[in-house]
């Protein structure tokens, strides 16, 4: 590398200016990110709160202006709201629970040394890259009654021909859960794998010398190392599953008869389809409150982790 000679004879005044400039450096650097976030995230969140207190329904132009708590009161008497809320919680708990079990198992498996590990890793993680409507496309092909798995099962004598897994009330939920797990498990596993890799191998070797069994090693070495990552992965997944719109919107459209409508999906239907901005915003505020609770827990955990250091 060529040595670059100091080319500025710094005058005292200039040095002072430079020092001030240097203090501003980081602000220039985060500037673009901060401005984008302010304009396209913070301001919109604020305006949602504003709209939640307004009557703003394109289909009812006569009913305009300040609404106060009206939208929130209406929500209490809205069975669709309560059903979407119940379904959201059911959806989050089942999805995250199953992804926790299988994601952890997958991370532990894929962290072992075996032939073809790199390839196996790429393959099992690939569904994560295939999100949203692309996942839907695949699962539509699988679940379709006339061309999907059901047809082939019926051909060999298992089950009934023409059963649609996506419209039967008993199967819809699990059909969607399975599709979401397909892409959710890999990301759960990635988050945990990152921490698993930082566990020093020497710990296991000395545990081997002490004659520790597999379970003992997991509980005493592995688990304490990855606990933090597991908690964070669980929370992140919970938030993502809560906010998940793409898959449910395209796979079931929230149906049959609203049975798979999550709160954000109900928001989209109310605000975009029915054009009721006021009520849609009020629903959003409730969703936001619930998520804020999640984020407080999350921040608390990450903070106590910093304190540990």
């Amino acid at each position, binding site marked *: *590398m060529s040595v*670059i000679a*100091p080319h500025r004879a710094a005058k005292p005044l200039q040095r002072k200016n430079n020092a001030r400039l240097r*203090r501003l*450096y*980081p602000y220039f*650097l*985060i500037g*673009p*990110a901060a401005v*984008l*976030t302010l304009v*396209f995230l913070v301001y*919109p*969140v604020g305006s*949602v709160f504003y*709209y939640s207190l307004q009557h703003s329904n394109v289909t009812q132009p006569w009913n305009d202006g300040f609404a106060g708590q009206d939208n929130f009161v209406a929500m209490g008497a809205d069975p669709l709201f309560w059903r979407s809320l119940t379904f959201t919680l059911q959806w989050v708990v089942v999805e995250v629970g199953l992804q926790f079990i299988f994601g952890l198992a997958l991370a532990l*498996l894929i962290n072992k040394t075996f032939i073809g590990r790199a390839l*196996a*890793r*790429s*393959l*099992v993680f*690939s*569904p994560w890259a295939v*999100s*949203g*409507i*692309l996942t839907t*496309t*695949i699962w*539509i*092909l699988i679940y*379709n009654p006339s061309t999907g798995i059901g047809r082939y099962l019926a051909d060999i004598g298992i089950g009934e021909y023409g059963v649609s897994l996506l419209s039967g009330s008993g199967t819809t939920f699990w059909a969607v859960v399975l599709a979401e797990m*397909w892409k959710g498990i*890999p990301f759960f596993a990635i*988050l945990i794998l*990152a*921490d698993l*890799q930082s566990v020093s*191998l*020497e710990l296991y070797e000395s545990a081997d010398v002490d004659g520790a069994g597999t379970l003992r090693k997991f509980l005493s070495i592995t688990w304490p190392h990855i606990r933090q990552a597991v908690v964070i992965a669980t929370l*992140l997944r919970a938030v993502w599953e*809560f906010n998940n*719109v*793409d898959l449910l919107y*395209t796979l079931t459209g929230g149906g049959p008869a609203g049975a798979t409508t999550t709160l*954000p*999906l109900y928001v*989209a239907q109310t*605000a*975009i389809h029915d054009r009721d901005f006021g009520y849609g915003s009020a629903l*959003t505020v409730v969703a*936001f409150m619930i*998520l804020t609770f999640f*984020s407080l827990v*999350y*921040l608390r955990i*990450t903070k106590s982790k*910093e304190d540990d250091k």
Partner: protein
Amino acid sequence: MTSLLPQTTPTRSQTADRGEPIERPLSPLKKRARRIDRVLTYVPLALFLIFTLIPFYWMLLFAFRPSGSTSLVLWPITFEHFETVWNGSGFGIYFKNSLFVAVMSLLTSTVIALLGGYALARFKFRGKALFLVAMLCTQFVPGAMMLIPLFEIFNSVGLTDSLWSLIISDTVFHLPLSLILMSGFIRNVPMELEEAAWVDGCTRIQAFRLVVLPLLKPGIVAVGSFAFISAWNNFLFAIMFISSQDQFTVPVGLSYLLGEFGADFGALAAGGVIAIIPVVLLFAYVQKFLVQGLSAGAVKG
């Protein structure tokens, strides 16, 4: 100029090789335990692989087999469905639009993440904690919730039905992950290298360009790829902000194929393959950086 120093982060194999392996003859009991362990690895792994790959195979099957065929073997193959989708359903145009959106999102995300990530990794400044918290909080904002206000903003500046509305919203929603990943990668480049360059007379910017940037290549590739993937897959904003067909992206085109009842499943599958191939290839290439980046940045705080 290539990197000044070899990568200094120790890899796993280096750490593992540090001790001399002790070769001991295995007792029959140990041998058996090892065999059981191997079975316990390969059997569940095979099951996971089957669960992962069958859906992909299913789509390839539908995309490549002739119409009317019910064969479950991916042979003989035909490209008739691709022909239909690419020319007949406008996927050629959608592909171009998606590519434009994804590449522009990649560029904006990467540049902004480089700047911000450097500040987060190398400076202490007032408001840093607040900035980080704000960034993290954006992870908790539901995309569906932003639709109305974002639509209004884009409407007021005449950006609805423009691909730029997608580029901006994709970039904004992807920023937190980009920033956190990038600052993790930058923190992995030893500060001493930069300081050495300053001593040699480099300015901060020169030191960054000559010393940090070359070492940061894997990080940049990773962050850029993730921005690309998430923009490529974005459906919600695309379907809400775009209305004219010549501005459709691939996911929007797919949703229209899905919507046609009694759909041509061959064409749908072919559209899916067109949509999936770029992201899966990119992902296969960068997934090892993802694990690295997460362990360096997000999960490790």
